């Protein structure tokens, strides 16, 4: 069984990102970059399936700038077998990312595609679902448990009301939630081995994908600063303030 995992290069979750003064975006210059935490969980799940003997090959894909190779190498050090970089200097939107992935799915014909439910930079939560629609594959999103047996994958999903388990025919798409697993760290011997694993580079044009942006960014601004709290004398005053000052009731 072949598994495709998508890994995205994002600003490290420890970095406090600030909005640029001119409102055109977030200031990420020289910030530490890492593999998106949800993608890391996706890689871990694939590696566990391989360790269990369920999967035989794991291909890690990243779509982005040349430096995204580092995140592919991280995935390779964690246990993926080879990597594909779809190199582009434009910041792709989920639809374009999903189209690139679709093209690779056509070529690689994996049995399972595992992605993060979202990336912590854009927070869109769309790519997996869009890929499902484009590729005509069933999807199990927000996975907190994944079991492959008898040509199906059972995915336990974290939904508002609790947990829901779905059984999907393979090939299928799984997007990971935080509680699916705890990713391992790359051991030093595996970091060295990752250097020797194959990493292929293609471009969206090679894949025939049009990467034009469809969403217009109007403005990026920091969230309003929290005001200091105040003490109220009684419930009546509280209700009055909620109604007339905060205007929330």
């Amino acid at each position, binding site marked *: 069984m072949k598994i495709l995992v998508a890994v995205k290069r994002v600003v490290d979750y420890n970095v406090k990102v600030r909005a640029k003064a001119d409102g055109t975006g977030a200031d990420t*210059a020289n910030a530490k970059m890492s593999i998106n935490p949800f993608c890391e969980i996706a890689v871990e799940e694939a590696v566990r399936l391989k360790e269990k003997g369920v999967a035989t090959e794991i291909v890690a894909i990243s779509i982005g700038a040349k430096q995204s190779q580092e995140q592919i190498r991280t995935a390779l050090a964690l246990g993926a077998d080879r990597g594909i970089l779809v190199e582009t200097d434009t910041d792709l939107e989920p639809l374009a990312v999903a189209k690139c992935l679709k093209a690779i799915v056509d070529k690689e014909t994996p049995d399972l595609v595992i992605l993060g439910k979202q990336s912590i930079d854009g927070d869109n939560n769309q790519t997996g679902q869009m890929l499902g629609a484009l590729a005509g594959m069933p999807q199990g999103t927000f996975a907190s448990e994944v079991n492959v047996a008898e040509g199906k994958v059972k995915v336990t999903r974290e939904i508002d009301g609790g947990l829901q388990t779905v059984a999907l025919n393979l090939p299928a798409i799984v997007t990971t939630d935080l509680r699916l697993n705890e990713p391992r*760290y790359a*051991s*030093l011997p595996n970091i060295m081995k990752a250097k020797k694993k194959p990493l292929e580079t293609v471009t969206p044009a090679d894949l025939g994908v049009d990467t034009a942006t469809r969403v217009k960014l109007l403005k990026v601004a920091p969230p309003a600063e929290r005001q200091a709290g105040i003490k109220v004398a009684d419930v009546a005053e509280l209700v009055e303030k909620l109604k007339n000052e905060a205007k929330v009731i």
Partner: protein
Amino acid sequence: MDTPLLNDSDLHFLLYEFLDTEALLARPRYCEHSREVFDATLNTAKTIAEKYFANHNAKGDAHEPQFDGEKVSLIPETQAAWNAFAEAGFLAAHHDFDDGGLQMPEVILRTAMAYFTAANIATAGYGFLTIGAANLIHTFGSPEQKARFLPAMLDGRASGTMALTEPGQGSALADIKTSATPADDGSYRIRGNKMYISGGDHSLTENIIHLVLAKIAGAPAGAGGISLFIVPKFLVNDDGTLGARNDVALAGLLHKMGFRNTTSTVLNFGERDGAIGYLVGEPHQGLRYMFQMMNEARIGVGAGAAILGYQGFNYSLNYARQRPQGRLPSSRDATSPQVNIIEHADVRRLLLSQKAYAEGGLALCLYASSLVEDARTGATETARTNAFTLLDLITPVVKSWPSKYGLKANDNAIQVLGGAGYIREYPVEQYFRDNRLNPIHEGTEGIQGLDLLGRKVPQKNMAGYQLLRAAINATLDDARPFDSAHALAQTLATHLHAFDQTTQQLMARLAQTPDATLANATVYLDVFGRVLVSWLWLKQAVIASRQLDQHRTDLPDVEINFYRGKLQAARYYIEWELPEIMPQLALLDGANSRCFDMQDAWF
């Protein structure tokens, strides 16, 4: 509030701007490596340090190791940390590919280790000791000894110790009493007591390999009569499995001020028929062999001290940014909001001195590690010899300067926190207690002073000193194009002149009046440290000035601020702390003998 582990930007700066670590990739030994591999290694170290080491730094301090008469128990997190450290490959990383290692360069590994130390210096101790002991066996052991003991020490089944100190002997090892008697099978029987042995017993590993200093009967008196032995807790069979329990007994644990999660043990060798020990290398060469390990351990001690200083700095800096207290002297408005204490100049003094000590100390230790590297893998014979000579000269300072000023940094961190600094609900008092060990072990401050002035400066016709002066002069030249760095270079040059003169005088007096001259060796050690660290700060200031000059418009704010911070710390150190050598030099020049002349009875 968690304390961040070190500062990734600074480590990056130290490795790739202050040192040229990427240049190592051109050396044959490292051709399989890449910058990506280095960075991934550091990332793994940080991840493990955050997850498995930082989680029990305070807990290990509050629940020190226990001995019930049979078994030593540690809090369980220690085992998880050891396992993660070993499984990730850190015990084996610097060994050759052929020996199951990864040929990781010294300076990268030292930086990786810095994360573990920052997270939990006491738990990190087990790994450090094991790496050091394995190095010693690797360098001086026979092929048979290597095959028997190293595999388990590289994969984490066995840990190591260095057993030098005895109840009666610490600084002066020449007089140790532990004895070694030859047995018929070529091994030796070891008898004697060792004290303060770190990691001397615990159940983290199935075996413990002690490296023990002892004297073979009939050996010459003094340091030239000491031999080195491998004494395992359990004997190791030819196939690597464990054999009988050796005659090494834990007499008890010592109860420490800090560093508590590292066991400190009193060990009895040979309570019954004598502990079986295997001679390493030649007889009577043991202290020389051990010194190789101690020289690396001394850089490790310096680094540990600097890193504890760093952690206190990180914590107190965050605290100062968030603690509102009082108003500026000029403020007359009692209804105005209080300012955060970082606004007070005196608090900034406390923080800036910590920055100078912590970052300066780490720079010093990484520079020393780069010399260890160059001494081994430098391109030419001359490059290797020079690196070794220079390293040999500065090792006492690399050990003692951070041990003194890292501790002072922690003192200042406590001061920044005020009352909060003094109570155990906040982490900085533990940093201070942990750090108080560093001026004591691996040769006390006094012993380092004697080593520097009595041996290291004069040796080889002052060859090390000349190399250091040449290196400093090169930086003085580098500073010339930049106004801010050049001003600092001039201040340094003036002090260097005085320093050189005093050094020459001391060298002349050393032969005639050794006792009186060496009486003030600790003062000289401090002067030397201030000069050396001023140089390293000037080097950093030159890089910062160049970046600020050439890229003022295209660097992001965070980087501009980073370089400005480097420049300001260099200014602080060279303008505030370097000039303090002048009165110290006056004491040395005048051969001031107040301490030397003081009589026992006068106290």
